[in-house]
């Protein structure tokens, strides 16, 4: 057989084998399931209103931002945030601290990951670190997603994932998530991860390079992106938070960065997150700021948001009893006239967790210099109406 004939039929045979492999892999992929049922928190029982608040420890960083938290063993809460000399500085690290509900105290903060450590483990240059997001995968391991930038500003971001097998005491090395074909830049995270029935982890992310839009990533057990769904498109929606209610249904909320009127955006799915409605404006204001939301054990949706169209000086809570159609503003966490506030009146980037005992925790940036923790029960929310 001549070389030409070898090349001709050998290349065809190689192509046939490789494409057979691609098709077999595709056809044997498990069909994506809907959302997994949320971990049950204890429903509210008649109780006296409870409320407490404190600032998280911060012994080193003049500037802190973007808190996140997950419940860990013993009903404790592990929080993460980023801090450094200023936002985007090379000395910014991701810090953690643990809250003990019995003592109502936070442990001294410690750095979980620094820029230098991330750079060494990721085997590429890293210029700065950004938003962390905490959650659990289906195996129950604690996951920490965080943003890093190699070139440029936040539009040059990529997301990384670290996993802990011991509730955040020690961590495996970070790995890079690939979510964009364009140098894998411009993917950031702010919303809480969620679980799919097939064992995959869902991660709401957003892009802010040429467009500002949200997506829902689907990650396999080792943390590879294996599918994604677009939540919005264009140039005005970011930082999605997703609140599943059943295997098929979920509602999502997004920060709005478009023309006035400035309102929180809402999206819905009824097929387990495979398709999403176009974003619509809710009645709640949004000064181009992050929001947080959670489905309470009693079925209501709680939302933390800046209740103003232009600034972040008022941080409030709203409840919805009809899964996002209508809202009642029930409490103001910050911004009461006359109450002592932060030197810089900015209260932003809230994060909500309802723990297994039914207590609700809201963490947020307090004047850019501290992270504040407000915790309360549903009776306290009711009393605020």
């Amino acid at each position, binding site marked *: 057989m001549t070389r030409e004939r070898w*090349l*001709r039929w050998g*290349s*065809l045979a*190689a*192509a046939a084998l*490789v*494409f057979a*492999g*691609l*098709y077999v*892999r*595709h056809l044997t*992929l498990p069909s994506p399931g809907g959302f997994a049922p949320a971990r049950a928190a204890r429903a509210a029982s008649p109780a006296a209103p409870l409320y407490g608040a404190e600032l998280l420890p911060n012994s080193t960083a003049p500037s802190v931002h973007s808190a996140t938290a997950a419940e860990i063993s013993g009903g404790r809460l592990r929080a993460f945030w980023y801090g450094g000399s200023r936002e985007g500085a090379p000395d910014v690290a991701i810090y953690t601290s643990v809250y003990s509900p019995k003592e109502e105290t936070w442990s001294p903060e410690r750095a979980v990951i620094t820029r*230098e450590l991330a*750079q*060494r483990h990721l*085997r*590429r*240059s*890293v*210029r700065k670190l950004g938003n962390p997001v905490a959650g659990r995968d289906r195996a129950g391991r604690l996951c920490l997603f965080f943003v890093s930038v*190699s*070139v440029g500003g936040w539009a040059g971001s*990529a997301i990384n994932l670290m996993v802990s097998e011991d509730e955040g005491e020690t961590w495996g090395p970070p*790995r*890079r*998530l*690939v979510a*964009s*074909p*364009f*140098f*894998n*830049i*411009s993917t950031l995270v702010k919303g809480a991860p969620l679980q799919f029935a097939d064992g995959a982890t869902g991660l709401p992310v957003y*892009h802010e*390079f*040429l*467009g*500002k*839009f949200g*997506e829902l990533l689907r990650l*396999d057990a080792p943390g*590879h*992106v*294996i*599918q*994604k*769904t*677009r939540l*919005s*498109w*264009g*140039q005005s929606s970011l930082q999605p938070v997703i609140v599943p209610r059943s295997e098929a249904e979920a509602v999502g909320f997004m920060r709005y960065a478009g023309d006035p009127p400035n309102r929180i955006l809402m999206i819905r799915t009824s097929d387990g997150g495979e398709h999403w409605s*176009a974003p619509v404006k809710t009645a709640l204001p949004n000064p181009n700021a992050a929001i947080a939301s959670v489905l309470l054990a009693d079925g209501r949706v709680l939302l933390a948001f800046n209740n103003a169209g232009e600034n972040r000086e008022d941080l409030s809570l709203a409840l919805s009893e009809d899964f996002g159609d209508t809202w009642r503003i029930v409490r103001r966490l910050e911004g009461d006239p006359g109450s002592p506030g932060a030197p810089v009146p900015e209260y932003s980037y809230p994060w909500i967790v309802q723990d297994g005992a039914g207590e609700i925790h809201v963490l947020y940036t307090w004047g850019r210099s501290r992270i504040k923790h407000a915790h309360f029960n549903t009776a306290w929310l009711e009393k605020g109406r």
Partner: protein
Amino acid sequence: MSASDAFGLLGCGLLGLAAVATLIPLRRLPAGARYAVMLAAALAVFIPFGDLPAAAYLRGVTGDVSVTTLVLAGAACIARLTGRTLIGPRDLRALFWLVVLAALFLYPFALGWTQFDPYALGYGSIDFLTALLLVTLAAWRAKLYALMFIVIAAALAHLAGAYESRNLWDYLIDPLVCSYALARLLAHLRQFAPQFVRSRRAQDV
């Protein structure tokens, strides 16, 4: 170091070597000097200074490069070192057209232009696989074996999970190879445009 990190660094390092091989007029040097220059460049690219090697800094900017970029970078290094052309002009032109068309289809939509996201097809879509199969069969029919080789190599790397990405698009193209292909096509068109205009004028007369 994980296999995907090693493969990613190797790709970026090879890209760096191809840049060196292209910028330095290697063909004017004696054979021994050519290999010495490339060896020195390889050391500079892969040996860490500070925390990271130069390849890791490049990787921070470009991310992992596609198999198409790897093949072109490898072919450029070999051509500069030995004078052997591995990919003929006909294959190259077809590859460049294909890469540019794929980029026009992928990037505007992947960057949020509409709700349609072609990048998501790369995680597993029968339509996408079938389109790629048809392109590969067309390349086979046209005897564009280099193009076939690139698709097969990219698909094999994808099946092996060589990179951090599980998306087939990331193994096929990247913005660097798309920019390079567009530049080469524009240069080619500029070269042939005057001939085309002259022939049209001659017909008009």
